[in-house]
């Protein structure tokens, strides 16, 4: 088989498996949320509720229909949108409609749309910190391998990795009062406030994740610096720094990039602990609030969006990796 055909076939296979995962996730969440006997109308109108009011709410949400009908309505909502009428007022929910929040009175899509930028800001900023810290300290440790500095770095990463993340984040949130108060400001309003408000969260994610990136990049730099081309470069009289940072780092970073892709995908599905502890209204906090209030449409929307993001990111990582490392598509 020709090279391009093999690549295409591999990508096609990955896309198909990604689609199958999304479909099964959809079905599983439907089963979980639609067939569980819940009482959303009671949640919406509180303890002092008349039976008529309950019936009104149920019919407005389509909850008086048979379960199978509800699933179909929900599916239809995702594709073409749907309408809800409460007390004579008709509210339109545009496609892709994931339903209406029971407690917040807004379309789920809108809530998730507001939460996603927060999560993305937290995750990207944190990634910048841990990539810089991790790769730098890993590269330095690899160069001084075997010395007490190297052992210190490795020992520190081991300890940092072993501290429970939520405990670490909580300690930062409670005791690192010199950092600016954590709060989310949209980037476009004021980039400086945006960065200041997220700084504590970024540093927390950065420091804890830097530990594993230090270890990864240390290991792959040790391997890269032992290769022939590094010896060749050194023997040509190129400066040590240039050899390490130009030649060695380029080869040593490929495995780190792969791990980064997978990590990023997972973190995007909700930096739940970070968001809760620093009180940042991202996807994780949204889902958590929904859990506390039995707001099932939001809960289900969060799970669905999270799954789709994760599957898509994995797919992207796999496809990018095919071009980085030709061995993958042959295997």
């Amino acid at each position, binding site marked *: 088989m020709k090279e391009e055909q093999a690549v295409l076939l591999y990508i096609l296979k990955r896309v198909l498996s990604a689609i199958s995962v999304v479909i099964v996730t959809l079905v599983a969440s439907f089963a979980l949320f639609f067939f569980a006997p819940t009482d959303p109308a009671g949640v919406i109108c509180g303890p002092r509720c008349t039976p008529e009011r309950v019936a009104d709410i149920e019919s407005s949400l389509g909850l008086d229909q048979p379960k199978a009908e509800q699933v179909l309505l929900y599916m239809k909502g995702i594709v073409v949108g749907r309408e809800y009428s409460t007390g004579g007022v008709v509210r339109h929910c545009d496609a892709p409609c994931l339903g209406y929040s029971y407690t917040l009175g807004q379309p789920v899509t809108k809530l998730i749309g507001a939460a996603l930028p927060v999560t993305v800001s937290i995750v990207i900023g944190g990634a910048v910190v841990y990539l810089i810290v991790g790769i730098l300290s890993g590269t330095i440790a690899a160069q001084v391998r075997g010395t007490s500095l190297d052992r210190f770095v490795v020992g520190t990463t081991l300890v940092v990795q*072993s501290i429970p*993340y*939520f405990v670490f984040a909580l300690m930062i949130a409670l005791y690192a009062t010199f950092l600016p108060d954590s709060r989310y400001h949209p980037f476009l309003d004021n980039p400086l406030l945006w960065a200041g408000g997220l700084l504590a969260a970024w540093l927390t994610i950065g420091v804890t994740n830097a530990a594993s990136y230090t270890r990864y990049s240390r290991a792959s730099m040790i391997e890269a610096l032992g290769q022939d081309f590094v010896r060749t470069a050194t023997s040509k009289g190129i400066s040590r720094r240039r050899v390490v940072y130009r030649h060695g780092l380029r080869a040593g970073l490929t495995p780190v990039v792969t791990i980064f892709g997978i990590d990023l995908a997972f973190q995007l599905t909700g930096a739940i602990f970070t968001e809760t502890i620093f009180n940042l209204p991202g996807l994780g906090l949204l889902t958590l609030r929904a859990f506390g209030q039995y707001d099932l449409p939001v809960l289900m929307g969060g799970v669905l969006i999270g799954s789709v993001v994760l599957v898509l990111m994995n797919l992207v990582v796999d496809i990018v990796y095919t071009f980085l490392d030709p061995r993958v598509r042959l295997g």
Partner: protein
Amino acid sequence: MEPLIEEAGLARKGESTDPITAPTGESEKKVDTRRKSPTQIALARLRKDKIAVICGSIFLFFVLIAIFAPLLAKLEGQDPATLNQNLIDQYGYPTIAPNGEHWFGIEPRLGRDLFARWVYGARPSLIVAGSVTVITTIIGVVVGLLAGFLGGWVDRILSWVIDFVLSLPYLLFAIAVPAALLAVFVGNTENVANDEVANVRFYSLILVLSFFGWASLARLIRGEVLGLREREFIAAAKVLGVPTRKVLFKELLPNLVAPIVISVSMALPAYIVTEAGLTYLGVGLTEPTPSWGLTIYAAQNWYRADPLYLWIPVAAITILVLALSLLGDSIRDAFDPRTRR
């Protein structure tokens, strides 16, 4: 190859093939390799590892606390549920410092004894983490063995399921699933006793963590089995007509001891953290179960007025997890013939 020859050969070369654990260049220690199984060699290495011994003792200490929690609380003369409202002032602050009667002081607001809550709090952590580790290990090993050994359509289906489970956002599901389970088992969530909710939450936590936990081990075991399947001893067993079940559990399983032990030692601290973390978020265990995660959640608002309230469970969980992780690291080094120590 005989295991001891293999071990000696690798030790002679002194090469680490595992990039993560690339040696730091420590001096080589001599290991007695005469007539011992790989597991015995590993255990001997472990006994000589000071960090492993210390961390193992710390773990044992917490296990003993969990087992003898009622006895310890009785020794103090308190129990985890009594509300000592007479020791709480009108603003909710405790009026006493830790003393001979209340060793760690009492909870602000409710006035329950902190030492009793602390010793009982070790139980759910260890029970949840322990049972999830056992369940995920059993499922992971069995699925991995079947997928790797049988191959064909069995492998294709099981591999797809493994990929599927691994590609779900498990934290989001860990939040969503208990809500659904609660609705199924308890029904209407109003007017239900706290005990009943706490019970359902306890089991649903174990269920959720188990559901998402087995897949990575299954993938690992499957990979190992794919390599072992083509070796001579398996072919010989097949030729002799040994039944599949025996080949799987008598021939293959003993060769998988190292990856299984390593995975267990890594999983246990991870699940303790997950349990405490989810409980802290309010989606794990609930009151009245005494749990460190719950205490940390309640104590974070009192961290200035009553730092001990926050720091005791924080210290306990950090020390326990740190000890278990370092122990896991030592176990990995001891069982992995490719690392030199």
